[in-house]
């Protein structure tokens, strides 16, 4: 039954690639997204299975959380895609920035890969075997590469090449890390099931385990966008279509984070949580600092959002590394970040479609040209910088509280300083785009499909700031508890 979340989008994706379903492609996309979401809702409503030590696929608390996020975000992106792709049907398009003509990728490849992307990400969430998890994470890279080069021109091809090569090399190192864990457990544990590994972790060889975690953090950290391995991220996020950026940032980075969490589960069960947690916190803080530096003088709003993803992945790593209350905060933060960033990238897509530029300083007066988009942009700015009453305020505060409770004063101070710098840079750049006098010749159409998905995501984030239901708290605590407090 669990396999349905992989099979539904996979079958739909392969079907869409066939030429005979030309007219129905968008319907299939939406239908598969709805089907996936309802399957996930049904699965989430049932109690979690016991930690079976032989299962290949099963749903545990962290997997359930990320699966639900992925499914909801994909539904929003698929709805957005209906309108977006109808506009892109004309295959020869003029580039917004440099004015040359280019051809789009064939539509069936794009929609097919979009669905396969969902299938592979779902497989990541439900994999209980570290080897299978790796296969799924690498598969997400391969099926998402054609999504980034949808607009076939020199910039998107450059971004695609960097993404493919850097992530594949990084992920190969993660595979080595997984083999190291197998080496650490030789003679102690049979197989690579995560629960079998955590049970036997105490008897594993600590030298091999430490080496394994370093490789895992470099490998999955590359995919997750942790500095200093984040170089591919701003390029890929800025050059891909906005709905793909939303999925990359809100769902794909989480999948890599889940891979890292699986490593952390083994490490804390082996009593090495302090070592691995320390590494996570170190890279997390570095990511926040690097993101802050690159955001100060940023002039491209999609790159600004991309660096913001680097920052938030850093926050997730810090929370997971500190453990306890901060880890619960990190889980809540993952939910908030995915929906907020998904919303902002979709809104950025509307801005790009109307204003035909990604330059922050050339976009002015969005509130007059595109009123709803403008409101969402300003609201999104408040949400992403952690201003109350949005959800991120609570999750960032929870992580800070966790850090201070654990006595990590220095971590707390650097964390706050980076957040402050980022708030100031974003406040200088994002709200002025909404106000002022717009440039001439802006088409002022805001179709429902372009504003409804980001609006829905925005409302979820707002609700999360005002009221987090008890059942969600329990799910978050269960997810954080599975990582293991250290």
């Amino acid at each position, binding site marked *: 039954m669990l396999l349905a979340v992989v099979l539904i989008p996979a079958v739909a994706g392969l079907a869409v690639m066939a030429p005979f379903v030309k007219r129905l492609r968008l319907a299939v996309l939406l239908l598969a997204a709805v089907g996936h979401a309802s399957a996930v809702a049904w699965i989430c409503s049932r109690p979690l299975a016991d930690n079976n030590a032989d299962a*290949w696929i099963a749903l545990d608390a962290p997997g359930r959380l990320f699966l639900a996020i992925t499914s909801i975000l994909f539904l929003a992106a698929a709805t957005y895609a209906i309108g977006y792709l109808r506009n892109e049907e004309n295959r020869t398009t003029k580039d917004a920035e440099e004015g040359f003509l280019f051809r789009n990728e064939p539509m069936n490849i794009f929609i097919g890969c979009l669905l396969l992307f969902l299938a592979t990400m779902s497989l990541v969430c439900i994999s209980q*075997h570290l*080897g*299978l998890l*790796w*296969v799924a994470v*690498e*598969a997400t*890279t*391969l099926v998402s*590469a*054609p999504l980034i*080069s949808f607009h*076939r*021109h*020199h*910039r998107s*091809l*450059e*971004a*695609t*090449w*960097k993404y*493919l*090569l850097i992530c*594949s*090399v990084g992920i*190969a*190192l993660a*595979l*080595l890390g997984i*083999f190291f864990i*197998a*080496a650490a457990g*030789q*003679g102690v544990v*049979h*197989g*690579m099931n995560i629960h079998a590994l955590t049970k036997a972790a105490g008897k594993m*060889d600590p*030298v*091999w385990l430490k*080496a394994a975690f370093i490789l895992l953090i470099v490998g999955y950290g590359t995919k997750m966008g942790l500095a200093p391995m984040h170089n591919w991220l*701003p*390029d890929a996020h*800025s*050059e891909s279509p906005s709905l793909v950026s939303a999925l990359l940032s809100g769902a794909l980075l989480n999948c890599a984070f889940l891979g890292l969490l699986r490593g952390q589960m083994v490490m804390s069960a082996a009593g090495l949580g302090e070592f691995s947690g320390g590494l996570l916190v170190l890279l997390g803080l570095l990511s926040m600092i690097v993101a802050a530096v*690159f955001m100060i003088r*940023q002039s491209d709003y999609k*790159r600004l959002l991309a660096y913001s993803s680097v920052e938030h992945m850093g926050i997730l790593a810090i929370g997971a590394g500190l453990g306890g209350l901060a880890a619960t905060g990190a889980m809540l933060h993952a939910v908030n970040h995915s929906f907020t960033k998904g919303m902002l990238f979709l809104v950025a897509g509307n801005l790009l479609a109307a204003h035909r530029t990604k330059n922050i300083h050339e976009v002015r007066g969005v509130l007059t040209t595109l009123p709803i988009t403008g409101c969402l942009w300003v609201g999104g700015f408040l949400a992403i910088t952690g201003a109350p009453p949005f959800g991120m305020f609570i999750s960032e505060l929870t992580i800070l509280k966790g850090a201070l409770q654990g006595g990590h004063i220095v971590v707390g101070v650097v964390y706050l300083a980076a957040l402050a710098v980022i708030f100031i840079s974003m406040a200088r750049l994002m709200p002025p785009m909404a106000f002022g006098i717009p440039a001439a010749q802006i088409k002022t159409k805001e179709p429902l499909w372009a504003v409804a998905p980001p609006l829905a995501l925005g409302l979820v984030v707002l609700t999360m700031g005002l009221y987090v239901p008890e059942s969600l708290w329990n799910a978050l605590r269960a997810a954080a508890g599975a990582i293991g407090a250290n």
Partner: protein
Amino acid sequence: MSILTDLLMMLLVLTNLRMLASSRVAVCIQNVAIQAVVLGAITFSLSAHAAIAAGVIVVAISTVAVKGLVLPWLLRRAMKGAGIGREIEPFVGYASSVLIGAVLLGLCFVIARPLRDTSHAGASMLIPVAMFTILTGLFIIISRRKALTQVLGYLTMENGVCVFGVSLAVEEPLLVEMGILLDVLVGVFVMGIVIHQINREFDHIDTDRLSVLKD
């Protein structure tokens, strides 16, 4: 059987050095194919002490088939499509590359010592040679210009990871082995497509000239 394994390891070291020394892309492709065959042979030689399981045979044969036949075929097509025969002017010259390779090899034996002592892996040269292969691949990725040569570097690195993996082949289930192989196959296929598109768009595949996107 450990003598056979050691000999195969030696062969792997030699292919790595040849990889570092050669400017012709066709030679590098051939090298990656040889490595795949060596990899398959290592799988057999390591499990020869026990009864060879059916799974091991399937893994070894499909490794040789995919990495030794299909991938080189794909890469040769990409090479002809892009019209490049040689890697001209790499960032690090061939003589220096080989020297650096020799230093790396020595370094790997030093680094692997603490890991080797605690390992239960079959042969003594396994870990340092696997490491050397991985580092050779990484070095080729950073020191060569052409996108195609970088793919060859990635494959070399992947082979190194797999050398480590085959020492644990008894523990790894067939499904995962096949999944990894499939990922590599599809990965090189997708990279080949992107190289083809880059070549059409830019009329070259020099990755150092893909430098528009930056901050």
